[in-house]
């Protein structure tokens, strides 16, 4: 098995290249969520270019659709399309590689972009699995700022009502949103209690940028019966370089040349360290 932590730095570099090529993107959230995506696509889900139309495949919906650059990097690595295609097309006139997931691209199930849609859609997917007595699992990733959308809680309510233990949601808890700290914009510190009160199994992932911890949490979620599970993944927005880490301004900042050089250097150093861990 490839060292996925090493891979996470390679894919972060791909994300930086995509963003710089398209002069657009949501860099901070890409960097916080990418380890979750890598864990799902390389450790957890039975999704590949071979089985993408198989009714028994696991399903994934990127509810925080603005972090699509991270998804592009992961899907390109999985072979759904070429990284060169993404670099050439991202955010360009007439391109399929737009700034949010769209299901005209192979490997993407649902279009997203507006927040608060992924979880309710996944409730439908998980319900279909139960109705058909299929064993596939359904995953979605939401941002923490996204939790202010009321539709998230409509979905959360239905997921426990229908005992959807085949559904696992992840909250990318990076504690920042476009206007600043989540706790200043709309507080979510009682997140665990909220989900519990909605009937969910809650797993706190202390380091949501640790693939090892995420993998263990997803494995644990699979053993829980009769209710859905949410992973509260405590992540660092901009994770990978001090240039962008924990800085609200990097929600959708495009690195300038100097920043680009420093970020790539930092990512290489961390990759090097991961190689020797």
């Amino acid at each position, binding site marked *: 098995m490839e060292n996925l932590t090493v891979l996470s730095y390679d894919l972060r570099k791909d994300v930086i290249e995509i963003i710089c090529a398209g002069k657009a993107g949501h860099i901070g959230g890409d960097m916080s969520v990418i380890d979750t995506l890598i864990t799902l696509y390389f450790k957890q889900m039975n999704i590949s270019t071979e089985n993408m139309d198989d009714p028994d495949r696991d*399903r994934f919906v990127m509810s925080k659709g603005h972090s699509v650059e991270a998804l592009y990097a992961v899907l390109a690595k999985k072979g759904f399309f070429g990284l060169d295609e993404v670099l050439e097309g991202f955010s360009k006139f007439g391109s399929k590689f737009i700034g949010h997931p769209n299901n005209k691209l192979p490997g993407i199930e649902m279009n997203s972009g507006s927040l608060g849609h992924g979880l309710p859609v996944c409730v439908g997917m998980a319900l279909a699995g139960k109705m058909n007595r299929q064993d596939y699992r359904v995953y979605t990733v939401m941002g923490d700022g996204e939790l202010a959308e009321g539709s998230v809680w409509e979905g959360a*309510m239905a997921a426990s009502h229908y005992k959807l233990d085949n559904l696992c949601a992840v909250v990318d808890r990076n504690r920042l949103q476009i206007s600043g700290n989540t706790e200043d914009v709309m507080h979510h510190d009682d997140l665990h209690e909220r989900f519990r009160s909605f009937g969910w199994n809650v797993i706190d992932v202390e380091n949501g940028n640790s693939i090892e911890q995420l993998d263990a949490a997803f494995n644990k979620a699979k053993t829980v019966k009769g209710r859905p599970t949410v992973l509260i993944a405590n992540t660092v927005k901009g994770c990978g370089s001090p240039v962008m880490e924990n800085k609200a301004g990097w929600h959708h900042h495009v690195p300038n040349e100097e920043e680009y050089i420093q970020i790539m250097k930092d990512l290489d150093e961390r990759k090097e360290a991961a190689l020797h861990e």
Partner: protein
Amino acid sequence: MSKIANKQMICEVLMEASKTDKDIVALCSDSRGSGSFTPFADAYPEQFVETGIAEQNLVSIAAGLAKCGKKAYAVSPACFLSTRSYEQAKVDVAYSNTNVKLIGISGGVSYGALGMSHHSAQDIAAMSAIPNMRVYIPSDHLQTKELVRALLKDEKPAYIRVGRNAVDPTYEEGTVPFEMDRATVVCEGTDVAIIACGEMVKPAKDAAAILKEQGISAEVIDMYCVKPLDKEAVVKAAQKVKAVITVEEHAPFGGLGSMVSQVVGSECPRRVINMSLPDAPVITGTSQEVFDYYGLNAEGIAKKAAELVK
């Protein structure tokens, strides 16, 4: 002449189809009673999903089900379905291209006395403006039966608006003219063309009878397929007559009248008069009282037509 509400007919067609098709799923938002879907929920509990009073959830869940192979019919009052869950209809249904049929029950001013919160006089405009969303407004239960049977055969999104009450049928059992996405010519005429949809088709047909007595020949078109609008039928009718009247249970903007006017204006210019509800909260009353007040009845339509062709 038997008459049942269009919503009841939708339920009956789906129940019949569900005998052999286990992928049909009906969803309600605490609306199984008002939607006449209790028989479906009782007969096919494993193919029925209750979301509670949560229309956004209703539509997103329907989309998720559809994405996994189900034929989802989301049944909820048109007033909520076309506004509260508008974004879910746009993103999860139309944009993601999921096989969801949105069934807007008690549409238009069916809930006449309940006030503007419960009226859906904007749904044609709103839903038609979404790319990849079709809009159907059947006129009676017989046409509704044909429409739902046709919709069961496709996998594309659609919004279907029906009224609350049973209405006098426009057609006769066994001889319902129906071709998917083609308007129905209810009667042919040469002086004026009346193009209507939904509950306005029957009064339009009755208006043609009144006009005939006055020596005026009226063509009546049932445009149940508001989107995709049957442009050919509009042009064909407009070419024969001096003027066109549209009649709809909808606000004056962005509905059937607007769409027909666009076609007539560009393809075969004629005078077009749009009969609709006002751009204002409508007066309190039963739907028939509301229609009568605004002249949306056989007499009102005939009067307008007679004035036009004078």
